[in-house]
């Protein structure tokens, strides 16, 4: 019998924070807002750690039912929370990283108009994200699922006076809706077949019937993948994530790197029971993941906006996680999720610190030589770069290698191919990360004070926000920064350092046996993924060592290439791009995917809506039909009125004729009776 953990407190505290700030924040002085917001993220963290302490003594999964939410006929969905290892991992990541980013934002957003609004939204996000991972049934999970979408919509559009931000927010929400469409259909199928959405019942029923393979489960799984692809920005629905960078940098770090975008991975892991029964769906997941990883990495190589590089790298890393799940190495996927949360959050925050330092500049071509000026940022960033590029023994190395290894040994026929592409992607990753590293911190400062101000408008967001909210004093601030590049305040650096440490040592949680570790993390998670047979590939310590070596070499190669092109010989990139210009422009323009979607989907839909449905059918057929009916009646009316010539003799003639006819009729009995009835 488990002790009562009051899990519901974990999501509800941030909700309270949101309500307080959201309703009263406008009136509050800044410190109060800050306090409320930090409480809204710190208290859940403390509560989670409290749970962690009790965790050992729990019988899992631990379930808490609060009350019924929806009940109709046989169907019912409750507010039910559950706790198991997987949930706990997510809880730790969300609350931990979440809290750090809250702290960071206190510094980063200090001057922003709508400070209170920002933190209210941030707390709201935490609420929904925690609901998502704590949910014990699909429907409640969907609450969080849609909710985080809402929060991200609000935060991306935080600088609402800026059209690009507004559009980005709308795009994110609608694209996510496409994913939700899949999620909904998956739920409908589950209801149709199991009459319930509770994880335990659905998975129990599936587990109880080993004969149940593929078929409907494949359908469910594929719809779920659609949902996951939307949330986790995988092909074909990844397009919203790069645009989402319109939001403030902490948002990018928290929502679009560390937590929300990983919800898709979490969902697949959570519902692995279904995927296990559908190798087909699993293959789809793996392929999508790998393709996305590679595809995004290539785009990442050609980006010049520091945040966009990170955005594509996020997409790419998420691809790895999908790959992990796709080869049924859920633990590996989740572990990469964790490490990625560390170093990618770190990267974003550090980038934010850089941007902060150079007064709102985001274009790497105008940076450089910042190494000395902002050392802390530099060193933390360096740690992150090495981690993501997969240099042992950093966290990224461990998690990514595990995934590649699992892919290699997976019974999946395409396993080797997946592994190869993954490996190549790893090289690309290390290339574009070091490219970023060099362009930002080494060489000479390319963007001067003068142009820094000139580029304020590109950076736009905050500045526009300020302009029209008439905070001229603040508007001056970034240009003030521009000519003396300076390190960020400690409230921002603190989180950087913590995350840096985590990125460095995080790997040891799952240090593979091959290297004398025990993969504690994997074993600890295994109860959750018990019975996913596909996972057990035939591997060996030897093989894992070899693969690790290979990937390390690939990473080094990527670093070396970057070194050549962006440090040793800066002219080189220009020549190369000139040489294969077509390819370069293709990549630099992100394969024109947005444009293609525009031409293939958006434009036709709008055209049909406006001209076919709106004009032709609605105005034409329906309104027209009404009018036609009206006019035809009027026409008949005119005919009838024609009788009324006003001439007495005509009238008399009329009378005479019909009198005669009527006489004849009634005499000969022409008007038969029967059909009148």
């Amino acid at each position, binding site marked *: 019998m488990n002790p009562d953990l009051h899990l519901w407190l974990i999501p509800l505290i941030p909700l309270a924070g949101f309500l307080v700030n959201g309703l009263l924040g406008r009136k509050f002085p800044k410190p109060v807002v800050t306090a409320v917001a930090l409480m809204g993220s710190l208290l859940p963290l403390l509560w989670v750690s409290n749970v962690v302490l009790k965790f050992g003594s729990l019988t899992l999964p631990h379930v808490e039912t609060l009350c019924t939410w929806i009940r109709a006929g046989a169907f019912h969905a409750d507010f039910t929370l559950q706790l198991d290892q997987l949930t706990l991992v997510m809880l730790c990541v969300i609350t931990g990283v979440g809290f750090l980013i809250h702290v960071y934002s206190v510094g980063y957003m200090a001057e922003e108009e709508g400070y209170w609004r920002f933190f209210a939204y941030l707390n709201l996000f935490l609420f929904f994200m925690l609901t998502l991972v704590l949910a014990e049934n699909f429907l409640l999970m969907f609450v969080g699922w849609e909710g985080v979408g809402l929060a991200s919509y609000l935060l991306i559009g935080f600088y609402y006076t800026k059209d690009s931000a507004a559009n980005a927010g709308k795009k994110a929400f609608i694209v996510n809706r496409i994913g939700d469409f899949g999620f909904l259909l998956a739920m409908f199928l589950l209801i149709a077949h199991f009459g319930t959405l509770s994880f335990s019942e659905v998975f129990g029923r599936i587990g109880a019937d080993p004969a149940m393979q593929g078929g409907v489960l494949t359908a469910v799984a594929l719809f779920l993948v659609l949902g996951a692809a939307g949330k986790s920005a995988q092909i074909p629905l990844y397009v919203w994530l790069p645009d989402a960078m319109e939001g403030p940098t902490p948002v990018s770090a928290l929502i679009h790197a560390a937590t929300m975008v990983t919800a898709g991975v979490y969902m697949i892991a959570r519902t692995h029971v279904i995927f296990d029964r559908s190798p087909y769906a699993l293959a789809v997941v793996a392929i999508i993941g790998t393709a996305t990883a590679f595809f995004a990495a290539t785009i990442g190589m050609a980006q010049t906006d520091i945040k966009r590089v990170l955005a594509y790298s996020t997409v790419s890393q998420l691809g790895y996680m999908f790959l992990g799940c796709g080869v049924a190495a859920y633990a590996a996927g989740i572990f990469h999720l964790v490490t990625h949360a560390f170093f990618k959050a770190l990267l974003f925050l550090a980038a934010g610190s850089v941007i902060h330092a150079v007064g709102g500049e985001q274009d790497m071509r105008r940076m450089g030589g910042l190494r000395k000026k902002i050392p802390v940022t530099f060193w933390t960033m360096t740690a992150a770069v090495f981690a993501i590029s997969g240099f042992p023994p950093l966290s990224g190395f461990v998690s990514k290698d595990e995934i590649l290894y699992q892919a290699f040994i997976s019974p999946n026929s395409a396993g080797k191919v997946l592994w190869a592409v993954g490996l190549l992607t790893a090289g690309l990753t290390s290339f574009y990360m070091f490219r970023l590293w060099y362009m930002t911190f080494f060489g000479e400062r390319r963007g001067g004070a003068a142009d820094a101000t000139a580029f304020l408008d590109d950076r736009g967001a905050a500045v526009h926000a300020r302009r029209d909210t008439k905070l001229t004093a603040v508007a001056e601030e970034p240009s003030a920064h521009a000519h003396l590049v300076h390190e960020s305040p400690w409230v921002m650096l603190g989180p950087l350092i913590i995350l840096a440490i985590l990125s460095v040592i995080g790997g040891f949680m799952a240090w593979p046996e091959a290297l004398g570790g025990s993969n504690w993390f994997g074993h600890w998670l295994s109860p959750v993924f018990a019975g996913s047979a596909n996972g057990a590939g035939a591997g060996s310590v030897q093989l894992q060592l070899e693969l690790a070596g290979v990937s390390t070499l690939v990473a080094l190669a990527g670093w070396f290439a970057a070194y050549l092109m962006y440090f040793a010989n800066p002219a080189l990139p220009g020549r190369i791009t000139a040489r294969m210009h077509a390819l370069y422009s293709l990549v630099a323009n992100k394969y024109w995917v947005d444009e293609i979607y525009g031409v293939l989907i958006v434009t036709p839909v709008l055209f049909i809506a406006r001209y076919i449905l709106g004009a032709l059918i609605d105005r034409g057929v329906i309104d027209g039909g009404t009018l036609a009916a009206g006019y035809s009646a009027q026409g008949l009316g005119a005919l009838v009125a024609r009788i009324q010539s006003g001439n007495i003799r005509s009238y008399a003639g*009329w009378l005479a*004729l019909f009198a005669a006819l009527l006489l004849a009729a009634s005499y000969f009995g022409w008007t038969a009776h029967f059909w009148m009835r």
Partner: protein
Amino acid sequence: MHLALFLFFGAMCVAGALNLLLQRHPINSALSLIVVMSSLAVLYLLLGAEFLAAAQVIVYSGAIMVLFTFVIMLLNAGREVRTHGSKLAYAAGFPGAAILLGLLAFIFLSHRGEFAQAKLGEYLVTTGDLSQVLFTKLLLPFEVTSVLILIAILGAVALARKEH
């Protein structure tokens, strides 16, 4: 004898009626209508309605037609011009009238047998018999006609009253 009289005066009637129809000047029409009515009076006699014959001559040919001619004089109505205000009158009316005539004639003749034969002097109604019924069984209608007359007077006065 009876048949001859009938045919003669019947022909008179029809001729008068047609003349009424053909004449262009209202006076002529009026005169031809008098002819019709007088000959009808004779036919009434043949059918043994002596009081009606008298009334016909006095009331119709006398009073009413005089009134007509008087009005014609008053408004000195001239020859009517054959304006073409109505095609329907011909297009619909004449067929109508024709069908009417055809139908009635057809019925009357085809069922000739069901009707009695009119024999001269076989059935004579004296004013006495008439008043017998008129003042007993049909007293109320007789009284009511007085209201009708009143209305007629009122109306004539109200409508034709002199301008002022």
